[in-house]
């Protein structure tokens, strides 16, 4: 004890202020817990990507190819020509600072280089020096920086501290999308063989077997059968869950986590119960066994390659249209890029709900409907029977995932479903939800265990809003419609607000759904209902 006391007197003399550092200084300390491991070279090769090699960010020498600088600058030139938005974003920022305090990584870490304007500046400074006339002449005076190995390391560090969530762009008067700048930076790094394994390995698995985990067709079929058994135990009803059924009306594509991870799985059971109850003619596909697309976090080319299977499988199975499950970045790809990348899907029909007759006009191009749109329409048309009391053990709030809210504007449908299936629903504060939602802090491939400290920082703004509704209303369930969220909000809650669990919107549907002939006494997690009388009263 006396040693402790002696030590703390010394501590009191510490100079608490961090050293003043010029932002242009690119030196990075790769501290444990705040960066991701480099790609497995085997999988880099598998994807036919260049410069596959062992690469440890902590080591001084990154074994860059000799002409790395030319490769990067050439890559930048190509992209400036190919993407007008990239060029505009490099040129028009007036440094007004409106975005500066909007990034969850800045808010949680306090690191100024996590201000979106500075994050972009890391790339922009190189652009300015090598591509703008003023920069070529004035160099540093015009805000230009030379591209050095240190700068490259800094890019790696900070562009993998951006979850491409686009919150900053909501506040930018010029709509500059820092997420797109991050995407460009990551593409450039890949040109010289620098990437992270949590993106490369799932992408390689996905390319090989159709899903991020590398589950083969028989494994997928087993997991669906297993879920059918589970649902039979829980409800007394054995549903049909067709796999690779040719001629089915609808192809159903889910993120792979739905059928193997907790708590996603309960939402998966919810989908299957719902489809059974309405007698939907649908099928899973063993190759389109992953809606998620880690290619989005890698490069546009990779995203296109991984996405192609969805239309290919729809064509092979001869379905009319497609429904997609609860996933965030999967929907960003489907909604914003699929049609241009791998369309037109003119071999499919415009989606019409076979149960309600509703025409999903918004899905005219892609022919793909979000499960929440589909279910909200069923409820709206009174096509299913719901007993929300079965969710009375949950006091629920809803986290908008960045992609479904900001990238596709799917804001009201999940809320409508939750209000119809749960009696106790409370919103988090307005400036933390809908378009202004705070990211989970682990999206875009950053959800690794080696990066956990950084994720806890980035997720803190979200967690702090959850804590607020937990303290105020007793919220104990954070629902969402994104597979990455379900995986990463769970540890986030465990650290910041351990009283709150994470669940799927369709878990709430599955719980509340009154099924013909059912014998149920528990929810989909095998927890008994709160009240006896909740059992069917008809």
């Amino acid at each position, binding site marked *: 004890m006396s040693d402790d006391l002696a030590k703390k007197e010394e501590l009191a003399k510490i100079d608490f202020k961090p050293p003043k*550092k010029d932002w242009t200084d690119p030196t990075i300390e790769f501290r444990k817990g705040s960066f991701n*491991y480099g790609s497995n070279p085997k999988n880099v090769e598998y994807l036919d990507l260049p410069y596959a090699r062992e690469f440890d960010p902590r080591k001084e020498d990154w074994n860059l190819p000799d002409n790395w600088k030319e490769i990067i600058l050439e890559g930048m030139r190509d992209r400036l020509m190919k993407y007008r938005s990239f060029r505009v974003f490099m040129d028009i920022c007036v440094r007004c600072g409106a975005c*500066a305090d909007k990034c969850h990584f800045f808010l*949680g870490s306090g690191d100024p280089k996590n201000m979106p304007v500075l994050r972009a500046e890391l790339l922009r400074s190189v652009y300015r020096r090598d591509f703008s006339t003023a920069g070529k002449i004035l160099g540093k005076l015009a805000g230009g920086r030379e591209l050095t190995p240190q700068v490259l390391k800094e890019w790696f560090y900070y562009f993998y501290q951006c979850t491409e969530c686009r919150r900053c762009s909501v506040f930018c008067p010029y709509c500059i999308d820092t997420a797109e700048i991050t995407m460009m930076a990551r593409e450039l790094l890949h040109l010289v063989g620098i990437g992270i394994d949590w993106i490369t390995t799932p992408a390689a698995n996905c390319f090989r077997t159709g899903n991020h985990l*590398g589950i083969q067709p*028989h494994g997928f079929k087993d997991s669906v059968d297993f879920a059918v058994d589970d649902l039979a135990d829980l409800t007394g009803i054995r549903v049909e869950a067709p796999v690779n059924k040719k001629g089915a009306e609808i192809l159903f594509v889910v993120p792979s986590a739905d059928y193997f991870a907790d708590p996603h*799985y309960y939402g998966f059971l919810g989908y299957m119960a719902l489809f059974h109850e309405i007698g939907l003619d649908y099928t899973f596909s063993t190759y389109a066994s992953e809606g998620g697309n880690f290619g989005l976090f890698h490069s546009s080319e990779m995203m296109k390659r991984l996405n192609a299977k969805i239309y290919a499988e729809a064509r092979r199975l001869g379905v009319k249209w497609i429904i997609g499950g609860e996933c965030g970045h999967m929907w960003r790809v489907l909604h914003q890029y699929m049609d241009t990348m791998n369309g037109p899907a003119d071999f499919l029909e415009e989606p019409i709900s076979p149960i309600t007759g509703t025409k999903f006009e918004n899905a005219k191009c892609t022919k793909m409907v979000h499960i929440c749109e589909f279910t909200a329409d069923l409820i709206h048309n009174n096509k299913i029977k719901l007993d929300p009391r079965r969710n009375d053990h949950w006091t629920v709030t809803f986290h908008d995932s960045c992609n479904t809210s900001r990238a596709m504007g799917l804001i009201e449908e999940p809320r409508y479903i939750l209000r119809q299936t749960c009696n106790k629903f409370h919103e988090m504060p307005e400036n933390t939800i809908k378009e202004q939602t705070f990211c989970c802090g682990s999206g875009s491939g950053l959800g690794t265990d080696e990066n956990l400290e950084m994720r806890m920082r980035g997720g803190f703004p979200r967690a702090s809003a959850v804590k607020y509704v937990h303290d105020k209303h007793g919220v104990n369930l954070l629902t969402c419609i994104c597979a990455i969220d379900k995986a990463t909000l769970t540890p986030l809650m465990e650290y910041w607000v351990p009283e709150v669990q994470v669940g799927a919107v369709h878990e709430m549907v599955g719980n509340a759904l009154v099924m013909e002939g059912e014998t149920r006494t528990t929810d989909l997690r095998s927890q008994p209902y709160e009240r006896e009388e909740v059992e069917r009263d008809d």
Partner: protein
Amino acid sequence: MVLTVLLIEKREAVLGRWFDSIIKTYPPGTSEFLAKQKDRFRNPVGHAIAESIGSIYDEIVSEMDTGELRRALDGIIRIRSVQDFTASEAVAFVFQLKTVVREVLGNRIDEHEHSHELADLESRIDQVALLAFDKYMECRDKLHEVRTNEIRRRSEILFEKVNVGCGVSRHEGGPVDDGS
């Protein structure tokens, strides 16, 4: 005047200065922001620090209730445990209170008259610092637990029930057989 009365009277001034000294542990642009933005959801770290040190201070000048202190320390230490601080940097803010009190009270502290109370105050601050160390360790332990649980959860249903295919492994810094 007894020191405790002075400390209560000067609560806001002490807390203001203590807060300033804590946010100065962040880089310049950040500390300005932490001080200025008052909306708790737009500035969750600043809000948590302010709330936390307010409660800590109130306990120091009153009951020193350990439960309350632990709860109050949690608000700030849980954050600093995952930020870019070493263990000593994460908890050092507690000791700063000693300096802050002297700065704020200035010549209203009479070394002679208040010597006993000062010693008592400093020993209370020391006790809080020790609790802060405990809290830091608790948060770091929790982090390890979170990490382990995450790895387990990621594949629980898969490994237990499903016939797994190829390629589930990932690279952890060294060459890995991906099973294919």
